[in-house]
């Protein structure tokens, strides 16, 4: 959380670039935002933008149950029309 904030536009612009990396991280199974962030080495709030963008556009979906730490896990889903 101590990293300087990047402009939101700049973070969001990276979504397409990060998509394949995130899908790779999720390939073995569902992960929470902090877990994905740790795997990628990026701040959690940036990963949040990317994963939520991927969720919006049908690449990932949440697993129903929340973890004990209060996070949802996200998993790769088959994209409609893909």
């Amino acid at each position, binding site marked *: *959380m*101590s990293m*300087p*904030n*990047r*402009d*939101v*536009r*700049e973070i*969001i*612009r*990276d*979504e*397409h*670039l990060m*998509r*394949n990396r995130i899908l790779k991280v999720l390939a073995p199974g569902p992960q*929470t*935002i*902090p877990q994905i*962030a740790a795997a990628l080495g990026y701040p*959690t*709030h940036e990963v*949040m*933008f990317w*994963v*939520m*963008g991927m*969720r*919006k*556009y*049908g690449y990932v*979906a*949440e697993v129903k149950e*929340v973890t004990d*730490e*209060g*996070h*949802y896990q996200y998993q790769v889903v088959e994209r409609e*029309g893909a």
Partner: protein
Amino acid sequence: MNYDMLVVGSGIGGMESALKLGDMGYKVLLVEKEASVGGKMILLSKVFPTLDCASCISTPKMAATIHHPNITVLTYSEVEGIRRDGDGRFQVKIRRKPTFVDPALCTGCRQCEMGCNVAVPDQFNADLVSRRAAYIAFPQAVPKKAVIERGGTSPCTFTCPAGIKSHGYVALIRSGKYEEAFNLVLESTPLVGSLGRACFAPCEEECTRGGLEGPLPIRRLKRFVADTHYRDHERAEVKVPAPNGKKVAIVGSGPAGLTAAWQLALQGHQVKILEAAPQPGGMLRLAIPAYRLPAEVVDQDIRNVTALGVEIATNTRVENLEELKQQGFDAVLVATGTPRAAKLNVPGEELQGVVSSLDFLRAVKLGTPTDLKGKDVVVIGGGNVAIDASRSARRLGARSVRQVSLESRADMPAHAWEVEEALTEGVTVLNSWGVKQFLGQGRVQGVELKRCTAVFDSAHRFSPQYDETTTERLDCDAVIVAVGMTPDTAAFAGQVQVNKNRTIQVDPATLQTSVPYIFAAGDVVSGASFINTAAGRGRKAAFMIDRWLQGKELNEAEFDPKLPMVDKAEVLQRQRSHSRRDPVVNPVTLSAEPRGFAEIEPPLTEEEALVSVSRCLDCGVCSECHQCVATCPADAVKMEMREQKVEAEVGAVIVSTGFKLFPADLKPQYGYGRFKNVITGMQMDRLLAPTRPYNTVLRPGDGKVPDRIAYILCTGSRDQTVNNPLCSKVCCMYSIKQNQLIMGALPLADVTVHYIDIRAFNKGYDEFYEQAKAMGANFVKGRVARIKEKEDGNLLLYYEDIANGGRINEAEYDLVVLAVGIQPNLEAGKLFPGGQLKLDNYYYVEEVDEDLNPGRTSIDGVYVAGSASGAKDIPDSILHAGAAAAQAAAYVEKVGRPS
């Protein structure tokens, strides 16, 4: 266009006014700047105090507005100005922004959005998530039609003479779509690999990122997609179109000829290229040294062309263009380039050992180079071809290479980086010298130089001036003259009009020669240029020839229409800050003793390519990657769509431009924009809405389900420190609404509201407040002084607790919601010239007789509806809009409807 009424803005107030007037039988023109009607209400979760779903009650009104027989809705349009006539009517100017999607064809399927490769903040989700450059505003949008956001043409794309959508292929690489990126370049030219290596890359000179740490390596990125494609595809895989029965002959197989052939063959024309040289490719094949452009890359590019069925006949010199017509070709394109070397016309030029750069480079590329081992070579010329000759001479083992340039170092026509590389490879550059004569008996033994004092005259025409008394002698074994290239068009004189400088005369707009079926393009028309320029002209020639063969008027069509180039300063200003991203270095392999013609520039690795594309600023927003064009099942994407200006006369005007939300970062003590888990009330409303950006209420900092949530009321309202003493009227109630919704969505969450006063003034509001308290919401009276962010993203609030003696307390929360206030929308005042529409002391539209004539403004016939005149909740906005509609109707009845 005449209407009884103009309504500006289609929020709940604007829609209500329009519907009431439409129901009364008035013809209403409703203008909305966004792509959907609905304003802010449609974006809310629920409404207070009934907790009705905002979408459920908005969408019927939105649909009724759009479909009402008396209402014409112009979405994605802006009123530029309104002028009141002497007869009490109004002249309105409207700008219809291009959506680049034909609304009649768009089915709202979102395929364009799903395939789009540019992500930008979604303003309809309060920037909590991305949307695409191609987008439908939100799921309940009315009309549900896609829009493509284009801010202009990106500088890289705008500058490319070949018409390549540079931004597009950069965006496609960023998405990992390398094959699509290759195909996008193919839309312009088949020379993907050649341009990826030998293009002088004007795109990079214009790259906006160049104003930061340095431009993207756009050319090398093209090479990356070419190398990737050619590695994965041994054969060119192109879809051959059905032949249309037309035959075109292209004379010359350089960049212009090959590109024209490619484009014409794509249209189904049967194309044959006739090339005088033993191998196709023109300058690509015969002039550009292999260390910059290997022959196999040219072969790969040419295979794209031949895969389409284009026939290339080499060793075939064409001298009679008319014969081609007799042979059955319907059209002819002359693209023979500039194969003749210009001469210096100085004594000794005929000596053995004095060769032209074209002959020299051609021999090198054809494998029969001049033996220069251990020899002293002088190269005459200051351009890129001279540099190529110098560096090739070094590679052939020349002991010394001295390059003589008329120009000073700074004014040399060669690119500065090429000069630098030549110097590194041991070439000596002698500037501001001209050639007086070549010396020797039978064979050249030296060059006598004379000082050049000026290259151009005052009109910047080439007119070198010399100091004949200052001379210098260079002893040498060989001389390569690279002082220009000219077309070889002597054979065509008499068939088409040929200029004095041997170029072919064409109509510059159509590239048609004096003979209708003969076109000419590339360097044979323009004189020596660059390969990207020649490719672009070949593409244009193909466009014109295709039209001509179809019997279409040539001058009626605009070739390659582009939006104006986006303002680079505006691009940079879209962000508050730009994090530093250094360019990938280009480790060209240079040696002071270069040997062999192996390629000196390494390819970008995939990682380097991805790092490089991550630096793109998406200047034009839409990258023109054309994925939307490819995926739209309705063929609705129309990139050629342009802005339209519309004028209308109306009888009365209702201003319903709504409000703005207070920018929360103006209260820096609350950390909005810096602390990841501090959000605004509108953002919370989005998180609670059925069409929310996340799967539930999560904190944006790390996706955690928040347990402890704080509200800070009166953020930016009732606050003299931000010049807004007004109460925003809705913040208390929307916060209480959200409290109840949060407790429904997150039953275990604690909600605390830090407030000054709770203003629950309308029917049922106080009961609603009491209900929230009964559900467990905790209300703490007192201001919050500041917020501190902890390492784990939690937030420490330091607040005044008035109920407990006014002491300053500290409390920790997972998430803080700033109940931001309402501000006037200053756009309302700009609708009329010269400040005619008066604003009140707080910059809302002034109601001049608020008590007796609500909605009446300072201009007779102009009325204000909803929160454009001050903060209102939804029921009050609707009521006010109804009043404004009644006032407007009365006015129109008085002055009469426009005829």
